[in-house]
């Protein structure tokens, strides 16, 4: 049965027990993103120290995919450099755009590889990306607010805050 190809156990686990959920201070930037079609929402905060992602906290309402994706995201970026986070973002984005044909790098994506099946369902790709778009947007804002941006951080393209 194909349901399991989307809803892998890892996803359901993160959905039922999300990591790092809740809004925390201090933070450098806070953004609010919405999925216009279904009304799923996320408020997400980023705290940086130099090029290090010290904390990502969030409050969100949405489906299993969007909830689990936010949880997985925090695991992947907290404690890493912005550059590493961007690498994970890019890898996740290309996995999500792979229409089920992606070969994700497990070293980079860890639990997020479980989302490979989601990429076969375009309507749900947006759910999986909601928190990542919010994170990229918030991080860009946080970097902009920082006087001296990290030197090895990849340049951050404009956020997709709508």
């Amino acid at each position: 049965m194909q349901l399991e190809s989307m809803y892998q156990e890892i996803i359901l686990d993160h959905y039922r027990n999300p990591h790092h959920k809740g809004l925390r201070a201090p933070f450098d930037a806070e953004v609010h993103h919405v999925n216009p079609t279904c009304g799923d929402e996320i408020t997400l905060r980023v705290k940086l120290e130099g090029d290090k992602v010290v904390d990502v906290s969030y409050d969100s309402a949405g489906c299993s995919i969007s909830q689990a994706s936010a949880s997985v995201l925090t695991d992947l970026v907290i404690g890493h450099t912005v550059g590493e986070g961007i690498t994970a973002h890019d890898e996740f984005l290309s996995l999500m755009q792979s229409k089920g044909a992606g070969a994700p790098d497990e070293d980079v994506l860890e639990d997020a590889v479980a989302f490979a099946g989601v990429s076969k369902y375009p309507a749900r790709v947006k759910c999986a990306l909601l928190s990542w778009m919010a994170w990229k947007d918030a991080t860009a804002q946080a970097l902009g607010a920082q006087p001296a941006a990290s030197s090895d951080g990849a340049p951050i393209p404009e956020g997709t805050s709508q």
Partner: protein
Amino acid sequence: MSEAELRDVLGVFDVEAVRKDFPILDRLVRDARPLVYLDSANTSQKPRQVLDVLTDFYERHNSNIHRATHALGEEATEAYEGARIKVAEFISAPDASEVVFTKNSSEALNLVANVLAWGPRGLAPGDEVVITEMEHHSNIVPWQLLCERTGATLRWFGVTDEGRLDLSSVDDLVNERTKVLSLVHVSNVLGTVNPVAELAARAHAVGALVVVDGSQAVPHMPVDVAALGVDFYAFTGHKMCGPTGIGVLWGRRELLDELPPFLGGGEMIETVTMEKSSYAAVPHKYEAGTPPIAEAVMLGAAVDYLTGIGMAAIANHEQAITSYALARLDRVDGVRILGPAEAFDRGGAISFTVDGVHPHDVAQVLDSEGVAVRAGHHCGRPVHQRFGISASTRASSYLYTTPAEIDALIAGLEQAKEFFGGPPSHAA
């Protein structure tokens, strides 16, 4: 409703025969499961008879209209204007020239809101526009934009816990400052059928214009715009067995004559100089550029198809299906229905939540079984907020929907609950 009663009502016409008219209903989806299409409030499927007319038009009669002095031009013009007459008769419009073809319902509603920004009837600060909390975004945003641009004030009727309009504030809301009342005939989220004629009379008593969003009414029940006593009535082709790319604005002739133009261009003019233009008579005044010609012809064929079956029969069928679906959903633990719980003054769109399972996930499980429903706010975010939720799952029927399809929906819901660990129902 008992199974026997159900069968009685369903006997009005032969659903299985109707289904044969719709090629897509033979589709297999998701690992070869038969399609169970319960998303007709979103868009309807198209019968073969209607598609044949479309193909025939493009293969034999295609031409631009009005402008052309040749055989094909005559045929296309006659087909296009003939469709206007069919549509006018379908909604009992007093005059076919009151039927304006737009691109969809949304444009029809925007058209009215836009022409009220200009000219002698243009809105101004102090004027009020009244809508309702159960409107589709397409009947909210145009009025927000109008009010933003003109300085008028937007007000709205609330919704009761039962999903009906809260009319207790009618004296306050509809007053001498009210210039427009715009409301939905049948809600696409709650299914509620609103008392349009009564409200129109109230609004007219204070001199307001009455605009009705009939997108979910015209496909599903007999509508008589004259009897409703409203000023404008909007609906859309793709929800009534017709094509995308076409909608209808019906308006009272005197108003269409009087109001300023909307879009400018070919076909909507009387004469053009570089300095100044004058405008054609309605309906052409509101149809700038090449209209949706093939789409109008196809919509005319859809009207023929629906009329052939009979709108009263279709309404009966849908009421039976809706009653059955409401009764079955009522027996599923954890399911909460938004809007009227009985199929009385109620259309066939049924939105609901399932405790502990997000609507997207409900829809996904259903989809994996071939059952197509919609999840989200269905372009009605405010009414979802009203009920304290951000999304729901919606199942919606049409003339081709069968009780067996409702059974498939129910089975899928049980499966979704099980998959996501919700409580099983005692009765299946």
